[in-house]
């Protein structure tokens, strides 16, 4: 059994429906991340947001980046953030005030920023925007390990430095008070 070309009764394609669902999930989860009171739930909503974003990458044809998104963001960074939350949470945490006093001006400024970006994007005539092109993994590998060899190596050194720096910063000092 094959699916029809467009969705029955609504009349637009499956890709568009998928795009709208993923976009809705991503924006909803992102709003939950910045507004929810319990910070552990913020971290879990962040995982949902990253997963929806990986779906959007697949929809845009960048499957390798989607895989890296799942591995790096959902697998590594989210777990790191959740562990940091558990290490720094005190019992009064969720009951304390969540927002700064400048939350309302910040909301206005962010809404203005979103509207400005939307207007700029809509007003600009982007060249060469005919349709989506999938990125083949073979071409990506060839480019990454030929044209971008130096950035690749620099990033590996950066990650090593970050890991050593993180361990140095977070380790308990010997003979400290706690």
């Amino acid at each position: 059994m094959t699916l029809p070309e467009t969705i029955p009764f609504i009349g637009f394609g499956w890709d568009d429906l998928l795009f709208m669902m993923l976009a809705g999930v991503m924006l909803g989860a992102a709003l939950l991340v910045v507004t929810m009171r319990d910070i552990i739930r913020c971290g879990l909503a962040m995982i949902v947001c990253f997963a929806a974003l990986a779906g959007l990458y697949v929809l845009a044809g960048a499957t390798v980046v989607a895989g890296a998104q799942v591995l790096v963001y959902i697998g590594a960074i989210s777990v790191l953030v959740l562990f940091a939350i558990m290490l720094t949470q005190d019992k009064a945490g969720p009951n304390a005030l969540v927002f700064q006093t400048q939350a309302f001006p910040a909301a206005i400024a962010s809404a203005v920023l979103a509207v400005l970006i939307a207007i700029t994007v809509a007003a600009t005539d982007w060249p060469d925007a005919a349709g989506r092109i999938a990125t083949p993994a073979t071409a990506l590998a060839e480019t990454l390990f030929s044209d971008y060899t130096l950035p690749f190596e620099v990033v590996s050194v950066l990650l090593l430095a970050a890991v050593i720096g993180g361990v140095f910063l977070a380790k308990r000092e010997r003979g400290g008070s706690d």
Partner: protein
Amino acid sequence: MLGALNGLSQSLDAYLILAGILFAIGSFGFLARRNAISMLMSIELMLNAVNLSIIAFGAFSTSLNVDASVIALIVMAAAAAEATVGLAIVIAIYRNRKTPLVDEYDAMRQ
């Protein structure tokens, strides 16, 4: 009204506006939250929004197609390094000050 949504996934504008909204949400979280880890999570949201716009440009341009994926992967690695160091700094400050709330980090002002 639904006809305007037809072909949404085939337009670069939709991806870029989505990335812009996600970036705005992240900037709101960074400006408004009191918890330092919430602020770091908002920075991650903003980095993801930038990544989404890079991927969108790559998906809709033949000359940028492969390079955009490479750049997005490098941004991801840089974001991982940033998260590692940022969370380590937050944990180190928490050990001294016993609070993750940034508006109580006022030792330099007193």
